[in-house]
């Protein structure tokens, strides 16, 4: 899942990647502009709906949903 402006960088709101994926694997699988953007500490990562405190510790298995979350802007 790509949220907010990261969806523009990814070219679509969702991407399907091959599992298993760690942080290096995720970055390698993303389009270059998006791979660079996810390094920005303001962009957060959630695995199956739970925010990761340390995104570099990502370990995604088959069927897991990774969400890339840029800074929010609500109400």
């Amino acid at each position: 899942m790509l949220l907010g402006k990261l969806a523009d960088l990814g070219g679509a709101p969702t991407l399907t990647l091959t599992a298993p994926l760690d942080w290096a694997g995720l970055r390698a699988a993303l389009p270059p502009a998006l791979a660079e953007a996810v390094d920005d500490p303001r962009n957060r990562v959630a695995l199956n709906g739970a925010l990761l405190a340390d995104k570099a510790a990502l370990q995604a298995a088959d069927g897991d949903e990774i969400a890339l979350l840029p800074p929010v802007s609500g109400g």
Partner: protein
Amino acid sequence: MPMCDIRLLPEMFLPGTLIGPFTQANKGMGGVCTFVGEVRPDSEVEALELSHYEPLTLPGMHALADRAFDRFTLMGLLMVHRVGMMRPGEPIVCVSAAALHRRDAIDAVDFCMDHLKSAAWFWKREKRADGWHWIEPREGDHRDLARWQN
């Protein structure tokens, strides 16, 4: 028992239809403060789209409501946020707090609005003549939020 009504609405809503029943449900409350935000009219903005991430957005609003109940002495809290495509002038958010004392009701609405504005899982973009533009919180929104960090 405190009444807590938290919703994400994908369709246009009329705040009065939510606030009326909320006020009725909190009879004997002292006071109720309500804020309704509308998509700000701007002749250059054709539409506004608010996206959210289901697994985080609604649980995040419930967690915000819990913090408001911890921080203020409330009898009830209504927190409704639009998602999806909106036109200028449509309501986008409605927060209403009922309390025995006005200070709690007003401050709870202020607290919830500041957090919804710049610390809830929403992403906003505007459609102008030259296409879509992502909107980020203003500097003032971050200052508003920082008021509660103690």
